[in-house]
């Protein structure tokens, strides 16, 4: 292992720069992933385990046992000292520094134990009810579906509308081509955040407020998408298109059956970006979706954390479920995503 970690191309010695780099990377690893892992671990703890301070790393919860003659389950303790050391007893009640305890196997006899001689018994238990109650009590599926609907529909429309425009701008020569292209590129300088009020006015005049289309329509035409696809389509040789036209293919067929399949790598980048943008969207949905049954997952999480400050157990589980899809996509498509971003400089 050490050999593997310290090996370098050509030579086998690590110098101080390598040690420093490794130190930096390890600290970085802890800082970047630590909080996320802590969230995931915490999401499996019961509400009582979450309230514990200082918190434990793993989801360990107190063990209880039902003992004959007692209605409520009694907490179990490991006895660490005194004449009963090594046994596991259930506590009936505590009186001062003494605890009255009972052996679950022999419920007749009550034993007095000093409270210094015992520690609570714990077991490793995943509180999966944090997750299951999201579905039964919190309408999780509705928010999830709202998010999926917006993400999928907006992405399909984004790809369609922007690739059509990119096709026109890269494969036809017509008057005004440069003007239109520059006009679209110029909108890169106008982020939607500075047009919040007027876009809201337009959306509400169209009667879209509190419908998923209020999020979808304003998002489908993106200068980034047009630019990305146009640059890629420019590299497709025009001869291919002319050959198809010789065979009396309609322009739509040329676009759909020749240019689109050949642009697949660029389309994939746009699909990934668009899905990321829409899934993570926050400010705009916050403005146009006010009814809770139209909430996306992000909005539901936000309102949830505002309302139920105390119910961390469900909130944590919901957060984990929200970051799960993106994490899975990233795990499989890491290379596409990182090279796509490095090449285009968009996020």
């Amino acid at each position: 292992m050490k050999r593997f970690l310290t090996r370098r191309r050509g030579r086998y010695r690590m110098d101080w720069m390598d040690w420093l780099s490794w130190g930096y990377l390890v600290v970085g690893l802890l800082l970047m992933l630590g909080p996320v892992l802590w969230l995931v671990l915490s999401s499996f703890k019961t509400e009582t385990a979450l309230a514990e301070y200082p918190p434990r790393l793993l989801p360990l919860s107190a063990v209880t046992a039902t003992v004959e003659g007692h209605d409520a389950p009694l907490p179990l303790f490991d006895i660490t000292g005194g004449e009963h050391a090594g046994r596991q007893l259930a506590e009936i009640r505590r009186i001062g520094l003494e605890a009255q305890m009972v052996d679950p196997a022999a419920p007749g006899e009550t034993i007095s134990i000093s409270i210094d001689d015992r520690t609570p018994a714990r077991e490793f238990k995943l509180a999966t009810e944090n997750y299951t109650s999201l579905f039964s009590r919190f309408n999780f599926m509705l928010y999830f579906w709202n998010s999926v609907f917006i993400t999928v529909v907006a992405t399909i429309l984004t790809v369609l509308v922007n690739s059509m425009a990119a096709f026109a701008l890269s494969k036809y020569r017509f008057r005004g081509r440069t003007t239109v292209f520059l006009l679209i590129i110029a909108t890169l300088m106008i982020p939607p955040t500075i047009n919040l009020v007027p876009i809201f006015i337009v959306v509400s005049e169209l009667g879209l407020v509190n419908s998923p289309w209020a999020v979808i329509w304003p998002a489908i035409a993106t200068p980034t998408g047009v630019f990305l696809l146009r640059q890629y389509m420019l590299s497709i040789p025009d001869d291919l298109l002319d050959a198809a036209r010789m065979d009396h293919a309609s322009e739509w067929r040329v676009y759909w059956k020749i240019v689109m399949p050949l642009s697949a790598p660029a389309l994939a980048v746009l699909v990934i970006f668009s899905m990321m943008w829409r899934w993570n969207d926050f400010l705009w949905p916050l403005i146009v979706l006010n009814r809770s049954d139209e909430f996306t997952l992000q909005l539901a999480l936000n309102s949830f954390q505002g309302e139920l400050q105390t119910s961390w157990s469900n909130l944590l589980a919901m957060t984990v479920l929200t970051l799960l899809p993106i994490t899975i996509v990233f795990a499989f498509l890491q290379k596409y995503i990182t090279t796509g971003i490095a090449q285009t400089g968009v996020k």
Partner: protein
Amino acid sequence: MSGIVRRAAASLYAFTFNLFERPMLAAQRAVGMRRVAWLFLLPNLVAFALFTFLPIGLNFVYALTGSDAILLADRPFVGTANFASLLDCASYLDPNSCRRDIFWRAVHNTGWFVLLQVGFMVALALVTALILNRDIPLRGFFRGVFFYPVLLSPVVVALIWKWVLQRYGVLNAGLEEIGAEPVNWLVRADWAFFWVVFVSIWAHMGFYVLILLAGLQAIPAHVYEAAEMDGTSKWRVFSRITMPLLMPTMVVVLVLSLIRAVQAFDEIYVLTGGGPGSATMLVLQYIYETGFASQPRLFGLAAAASILMAVVLFVLTLGQLWLTRSRAEGDSR
């Protein structure tokens, strides 16, 4: 499973083709081959017109009219009153002397935020990119680790850190373990601001690391080989080769991160809600609260504030164009 997905995608693809083929053919015959490009541009141009170009104009119209009415007909013309009220200040350095004191507090906060967030983030991103550019095992893995938070939604980012930073959270437990005093991180104004900057760096740094890494890898290897042959010291290689050749990428990173920082909102809003008080309220949150979250909805004031923000962004973008342009000229000389 993947077979089903692929077949579903293929049939959706074919379906869309069939759906549009006849209408598009008819439209193509109607407009003629010479104008067929406009047919393909149409959906995009309509969307741009409705949701980008029309709003730019409307922004000014709303900024110049008053009242909380949403319909244009009900809004009286007030001239530059909205701008005047935003800019009405005895001293711009003291938000308390301004009529819109919250706006100016937000402007001050945004100024500090941009300065600290961009400064530290670009520096850290550079260090990280330089390290990841070295010949180190597990490089791809570490690149993924630093990039991962970029993909998380702002709400998730904020909740992850809220859980760590809460009064009885793991950070305070760790501090007490080593004998330090616990702190109510998001309740104390100075600490809240620190964490807002920190979390924002945490969430966005990976993106810039990736761009800088691409810039580093574009530097041809033979330049380094030549330097090694001449026995050039590591520091000289860095300051005379790496940094000058990385400069164009650094400019892009700097301007992109400046533009983003000026518009920061999401994770900060969820993490602190702009609080305590208005200690972490930034300009975009002011616009959101003025125009949408509080009654009465002051659309005019919000529009005016966003036009002021647009001016700043415009200057930054022009700065980028000017910087990259003068660099390109410098190279050709």
